[in-house]
């Protein structure tokens, strides 16, 4: 209560005001914050969309089930795999690839359908002719995307047996851009937000303004929140830019509630900003801050499920992924945008992200010392 009564007089307000004025005058940062998402989206989106197309593919379907046929369909629809032949056995498959008549093969084992029906992971194998490493890498990642997009559908809602049918509105071509753009929102946000706040305190330290600031009676909470909150705005502008561009350029659907998405993004944005601030208390210079942010970007791209499905990762990698706020935010983004699900399905992720946000803010307040040592 006493804190509430003190609220109007807290140093938080002048701190917020000062940060906003500085932000407004810092055209460079502002431009970067708004330009980066647009450029990155175009790069990522097109790079991934212009995968190798029409790879001659043979199929060995030992499952002979509706789900195996559906998987073949998914691969065919991705535009990257042209099914040229169904083969009866592995020998034929090997011969066709060796002779170059096919560059890729999809092998669906007999128990594929049974596994899926029992709620286990159905395993299929993709073989790619690796003679051309670039083409095969592209084919592999596109296969992975097709597979994980299908997996996303399968685990979407309800008992799996009832959910094998593909909803006609959902990305029938499994265009990779549709799958990747929501992920880009998350990756970009974590990069830029962590980057700006990780610089925030070291910049003041380097310019010598921090010394003058912390010699005042400003409380640490006001200082930390004053550094974080103005960038909420930036985060929301970035989300909006990517959503609009994703829709215009890649026809990414927005099936769920947009206000819900904005609400759930709050926890992720605050968590990212606080993480950046925490880094800021660990480094000595802006250069170090930048290096640390980019170091942090790597696991986010590789282990969060942005490109590679987490289920397929070795356990330690999954643990690291579970420690990244982005992992949970990706589930929220894809859930709301691509599957149209709501808080009913996404509350665990929301809870974890809120935990991250609160924990990281508290930690950065605790870690921050009003000394210049």
């Amino acid at each position: 209560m006493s804190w509430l009564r003190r609220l109007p007089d807290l140093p938080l307000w002048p701190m917020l005001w000062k940060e906003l004025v500085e932000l407004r005058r810092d055209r460079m940062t502002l431009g970067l914050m708004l330009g980066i998402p647009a450029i990155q989206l175009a790069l990522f989106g097109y790079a991934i969309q212009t995968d190798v197309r029409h790879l001659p593919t043979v199929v060995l379907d030992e499952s002979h089930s509706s789900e195996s046929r559906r998987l073949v369909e998914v691969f065919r629809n991705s535009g990257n795999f042209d099914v040229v032949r169904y083969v009866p056995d592995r020998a034929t498959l090997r011969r066709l690839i060796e002779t170059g008549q096919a560059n890729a093969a999809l092998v669906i084992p007999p128990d594929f359908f049974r596994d899926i029906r029992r709620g286990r992971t159905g395993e299929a194998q993709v073989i790619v002719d690796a003679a051309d490493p670039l083409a095969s890498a592209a084919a592999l990642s596109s296969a992975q995307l097709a597979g994980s997009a299908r997996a996303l559908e399968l685990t979407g809602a309800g008992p799996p047996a009832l959910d094998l049918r593909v909803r006609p509105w959902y990305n029938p071509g499994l265009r990779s851009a549709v799958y990747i753009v929501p992920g880009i929102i998350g990756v970009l946000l974590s990069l830029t937000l962590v980057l700006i706040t990780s610089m925030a305190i070291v910049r003041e330290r380097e310019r010598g303004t921090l010394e003058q600031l912390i010699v005042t009676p400003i409380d640490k909470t006001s200082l930390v929140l004053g550094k974080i909150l103005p960038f909420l705005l930036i985060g929301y502008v970035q989300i909006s830019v990517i959503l609009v561009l994703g829709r215009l350029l890649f026809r990414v659907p927005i099936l769920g509630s947009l206000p819900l998405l904005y609400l759930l993004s709050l926890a992720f944005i605050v968590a990212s900003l606080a993480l950046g601030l925490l880094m800021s208390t660990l480094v000595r210079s802006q250069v170090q801050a930048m290096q640390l942010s980019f170091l942090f970007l790597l696991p986010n791209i590789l282990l969060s499920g942005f490109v590679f499905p987490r289920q397929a990762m070795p356990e330690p990698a999954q643990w690291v992924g579970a420690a990244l706020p982005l992992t949970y935010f990706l589930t929220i983004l894809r859930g709301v945008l691509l599957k149209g699900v709501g808080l009913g399905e996404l509350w665990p992720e929301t809870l974890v992200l809120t935990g991250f946000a609160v924990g990281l803010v508290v930690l950065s307040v605790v870690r921050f010392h009003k000394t210049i040592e």
Partner: protein
Amino acid sequence: MSEPAWTDAVVAEHLRKTFGTLVAVDDITMTIARGEVFGFLGPNGSGKTTTIRMLCGLMTPSGGTATVVGYDVRRDAERIRRRIGYMSQKFGLYDDLTVMENMRFYASIYGLHGAARRARLAELVAELGLGDRVDQLAGTLSGGWKQRLALACAVAHRPAMLFLDEPTAGVDPASRRIFWQRIHALAGQGTTILVTTHYMDEAEQCGRLAFLSRGHLIAVGTVPEILAQFHQPTIEDVFIELQRRDEGAVV
């Protein structure tokens, strides 16, 4: 919250600060009385800034104790911060805020709001002659004006004690004179002032002086006392003599 009664603005005992193996401040014991203008002199790297930073609660002492305006620097740094003003050696205000914005920011941080803040800011603008510059970005001010602005921000909350770390470095003689007139005016109102300087004419305007050399306090006293102690005609000669001893000690 009862205010401790204090007569000495600063009481330091065996104050010490080390950075790794470097001893920046060693065994400083001194007292600064309420209302004094106390000058801190010493060659570059002698530990003036480090001592001030410990007194302001910006650095934790490695050894010894100190109280400032009655509060312990280790335990009560926040209480000290409410009652002191500090001008850092390097200009520490925001280049991309205007003169008035900087002043308003600092006044607000110190808890001034509304009409009281407006009145205080107007008063400061008048006292420091900042009237023509209020809308100029602080980063575009020349050295002397930056220092006046920094002083205005440091005294916005009428601190009981003021720490000025080389406030007139790189400032032209006319501005330095104005600056020192402000210092004397503040002292006249009862503000205790600790000021560091490399200008001997400024040193001579201090009530008492302290000479630092390689982290040690080697002399404290009024100008005549110091002159007598070192058998030198002027403060400048004392300074040069000390510097010579310093370098001698290195060899």
